[in-house]
């Protein structure tokens, strides 16, 4: 592959597009696929053929458009007219209204705040390109970043770019990506690895899945750039087996990239070699923890080990290893293409760029959104999310997945970034955001998440293995109104021990939902103690 | 004034009481400082309104035990959990992983040679689903682990209490000692 060939592919795609009057996009990511989007795609194709429009109108499956709960979603481009809940029976609503036709029952306002308030970098190609065609990715400047890096930048310049961009790891920890790359780049060793963490075990989270299904080449490109920067020639994508669609699209993408010489030996005519293989996880949450993930790739039991040494120094098979999250890798190519300064201009002082959130719970628009760092919780929940359904009152929002915390109404105006959420006793995590209304009971919420941590604890270290079970039992006592004052003290003590002595992040952060609800909603715990005393 | 002392047993083997009695002649040495107001070893059948120190052996295994220990706590200044059964439910708790009905059935029906019926009489206290250490039910002031704790340990504990100190027994005894 050469730059010219890359540009030829792009030109070819643009020509093909210009020969069509319009194109119809049907979401074929997992959310819509589960509602039979494939059949919708076929039906629309059939109808166009009947109408004799097959030549003028392009129909293609694209990645996730974000409003998954209203799927299957369909859009007519270039005017970006959107339809929701399309099935075989009502697909004619789309094909009958190709010219700026009348409004239908299934129109979806594409200029609503849900779409307009978003800022897309990671998901820029989601809902736009056909994820199974490398040519479409290239048409949107795909692999140009890799080319630039290989031809115009030395390893250190790439790392410095990343440092300047201010990008931080999206896997939960928020560790500065540039710093991590620089550490692995400096690590001594002829053999190094790049790992993409696509384990995504948080219940209700599907940011990474969506990117993999909608734009897999973006990840391959990000990994290749990383490999060049740190001096690795082999990469692994660790993806959970529960993501069959993502896996099959990744496989297709890897094959296509290999065939085009974008993976393999002498990439872009340079001495840079890089291969990527896929490893499947069996769906244990803890296997998303980097050292457990590495143990799992090595064929062992997926349990974390104490750090240091960090993977950057001693990772896969004892070699220096760079491990980043899917969303982190998805940011790399745009940073290289558009520049570190551009990226650093988005977001807050300490947290740059955008963040993808999975908005769920008691909110009108549930789905996947990408917003600039620093947007307030209120904007996210009430403008983009459309507020609480049924006129009920907002109560709290849980961020950061099972080990995140619950944030009450008084803090809705804080600007979301890594620091602000941590200060409130929650975390950014991987981007779960569950909205709760006045009917939710915070003790039950804490208990639900503790149950998750208890059953996902790997069982290696005592505080997490036994502590989470004990905390869960105490929360059950509260839920059943059998708790005493002493139970409250014990609960707080146990949370403290588990947080400060557990081996890995799972245990260390598992008390967060309890601690944050104790902080902001203590009366809900107290009520349950009171009740028992009154009974006697 | 003499310190009012009570002793009692819940679900245990009375071994701790035997060990207590093994204090022997040293009991006489403190006899003028204590008054045994309630005990399986004396005749009084009603628990007094006020007791300075109550020494309890055994785990909480039945509804009777439960009522008894709650009552004792109410009328006692210092509650001593004596022995492993009182402190960690010990041998009595070995039934805990198994449902109560299954156990009774095994004991009185399946393994019975004669008269294989489930015991049922108003005087028989109902068993709790789970045998518990005392401190799971009421607050305990002094723990004397051991199965049974030695007479020396018990004597030391009582003597310390009489002198107005909460005894530190960690060097003297432990679970299973």
């Amino acid at each position, binding site marked *: 592959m050469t730059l010219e060939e890359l540009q030829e592919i792009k030109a070819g795609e643009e020509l093909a597009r210009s020969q069509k009057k319009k194109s119809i996009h049907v979401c074929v990511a997992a959310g819509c696929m589960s509602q039979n989007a494939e059949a919708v795609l076929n039906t629309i194709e059939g109808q166009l053929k009947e109408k004799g429009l097959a030549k003028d109108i392009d129909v293609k499956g694209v990645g996730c458009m974000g409003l998954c709960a209203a799927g299957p979603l369909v859009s007519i481009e270039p005017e970006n007219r959107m339809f929701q809940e399309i099935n075989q029976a009502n697909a004619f609503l789309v094909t009958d209204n190709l010219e700026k036709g009348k409004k239908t029952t299934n129109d979806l306002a594409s200029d609503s705040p849900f779409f307009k308030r978003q800022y897309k970098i990671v998901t820029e190609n989601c809902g736009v390109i056909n994820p199974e065609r490398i040519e479409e990715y290239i048409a949107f400047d795909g692999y140009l970043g890799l080319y630039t890096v290989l031809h115009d930048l030395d390893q250190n310049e790439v790392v410095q770019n990343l440092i300047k961009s201010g990008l931080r790891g999206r896997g939960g920890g928020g560790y500065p990506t540039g710093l991590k790359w620089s550490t692995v780049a400096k690590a*001594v060793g002829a053999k190094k690895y790049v790992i993409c963490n696509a384990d995504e075990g948080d219940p209700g989270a599907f940011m990474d899945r969506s990117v993999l299904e909608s734009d897999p080449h973006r990840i391959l490109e990000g990994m290749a750039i990383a490999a060049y920067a740190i001096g690795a020639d082999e990469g692994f994508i660790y993806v959970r087996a529960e993501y069959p669609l993502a896996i099959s699209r990744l496989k297709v993408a890897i094959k296509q990239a290999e065939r085009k010489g974008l993976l393999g030996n002498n990439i872009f005519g340079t001495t840079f070699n890089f291969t990527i293989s896929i490893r499947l996880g069996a769906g*244990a949450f*803890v296997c998303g923890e980097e050292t457990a993930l590495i143990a799992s790739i090595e064929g062992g*039991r997926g349990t974390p*080990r*104490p750090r240091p040494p960090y993977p950057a120094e001693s990772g896969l098979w004892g070699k220096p290893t760079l491990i980043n999250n899917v969303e982190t890798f998805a940011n790399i190519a745009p940073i290289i293409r558009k520049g570190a300064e551009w990226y650093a201009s988005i977001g807050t002082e300490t947290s740059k760029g955008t963040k993808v959130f999975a908005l769920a719970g008691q909110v009108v628009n549930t789905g996947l959104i990408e917003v600039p760092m620093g947007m307030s919780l209120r904007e996210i929940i009430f403008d983009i999310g459309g507020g609480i359904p049924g006129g009920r009152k907002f109560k709290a929002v849980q961020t950061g997945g099972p080990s995140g915390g619950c944030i009450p109404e008084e803090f809705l105006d804080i600007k979301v970034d890594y620091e602000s959420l941590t200060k409130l006793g929650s975390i950014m995590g991987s981007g779960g955001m569950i909205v709760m209304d006045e009917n939710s009971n915070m003790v039950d919420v804490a208990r639900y998440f503790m149950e998750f941590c*208890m*059953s*996902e*604890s*790997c*069982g*290696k*270290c*005592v*505080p*997490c*293995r*036994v*502590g*989470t*079970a*004990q905390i869960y*039992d105490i929360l059950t006592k509260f839920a059943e109104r059998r708790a005493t004052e002493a139970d409250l003290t*014990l609960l707080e*003590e*146990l949370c403290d*021990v588990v947080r*400060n*002595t*557990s*081996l890995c992040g799972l245990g260390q952060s598992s008390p967060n939902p309890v601690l944050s609800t104790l902080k902001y909603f203590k009366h809900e715990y107290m009520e349950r103690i009171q009740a028992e005393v009154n009974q006697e | 004034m003499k310190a009012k002392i009570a002793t009692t047993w819940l679900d245990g083997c009375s071994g701790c009481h035997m060990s207590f009695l093994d204090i022997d002649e040293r009991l006489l040495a403190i006899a003028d400082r204590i008054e045994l107001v309630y005990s399986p070893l004396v005749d009084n059948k009603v628990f007094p309104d006020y007791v300075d120190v109550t020494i309890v052996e055994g785990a909480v295994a039945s509804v009777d035990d439960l009522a008894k220990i709650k009552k004792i706590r109410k009328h006692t200044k210092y509650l001593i*959990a004596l022995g*492993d059964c009182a*402190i*960690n*439910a*010990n041998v009595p*708790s*070995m039934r*805990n*992983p*198994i449902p109560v009905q299954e156990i009774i059935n095994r004991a009185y029906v399946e393994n019975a040679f004669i008269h294989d019926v489930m015991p049922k009489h108003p005087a028989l206290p109902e068993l709790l689903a*789970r045998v518990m*250490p005392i*401190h*799971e039910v009421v607050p*305990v002031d002094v*723990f*004397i*682990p051991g*199965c049974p704790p030695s007479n020396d340990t018990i004597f030391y504990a009582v003597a310390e209490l009489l002198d107005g100190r909460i005894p530190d*027994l*960690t*060097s003297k*005894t*432990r*679970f*299973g*000692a």
Partner: protein
Amino acid sequence: MTANGQIKIFTLKIDGKDVSARSDQTVLQVCRENEYFIPTLCHLEGLSNIGACRLCMVEVAGQRKLLPACTTMVSEGMEVTTTNDKLAHYRKMTLELIFSERNHTCSVCVSNNHCELQYLSQKLGINHIRVPYRFPKFAVDASHPYFILDHNRCILCTRCVRVCDEIEGAHVWDVSGRGIQAKVITELNQPWGSADTCTQCGKCVNVCPVGALSEKGRSVAENTKRSGFLPYLTARRKEKI
């Protein structure tokens, strides 16, 4: 150890006192050498360290988090605090959690009076367990001709797993299940007695800190463990190479 395998000599402070250490030593090794008490259960000299029981947590100046002494390598100028009120509290609580997990009925246990867990409970001043006992239902595997595995007493230190794998080279043991459901298994969850891979060497029994592994036909008093062979064995093996 440094990257090129050279061993250096460091000076560090333990509880305010200067001590010297080789760069290939752990904080635990140096503390023990200098007779500082740090409780441990999963650690055993001669086996790999895994940092699982969390009893050996210490404070290291400049570190936000507590660190397990058994897996933390020494470094020049390191300042270690081996004990203070907070550490003592955490250690007690951790030990209490271990007691509460399975059925540790010391009075009728084969390891009564020579059990590391029981010993530590006394050493740390534990006279009752504040967290409720869980009383799980676990079986006993007595299928082996010489040894018995009683899950009720197991604390999941995985010493048996490591000694069998790292020293005996048989790898009979593994851990199955997650979280509170985790347990040690033999021969991919077959009865121990049917394990063709077991050489009957007894190493696992001798390193087990509690009454989970014991020898058949021996009284409680006779069931003492001898794990002292390990450092000797590993040292001799290293010499050979």
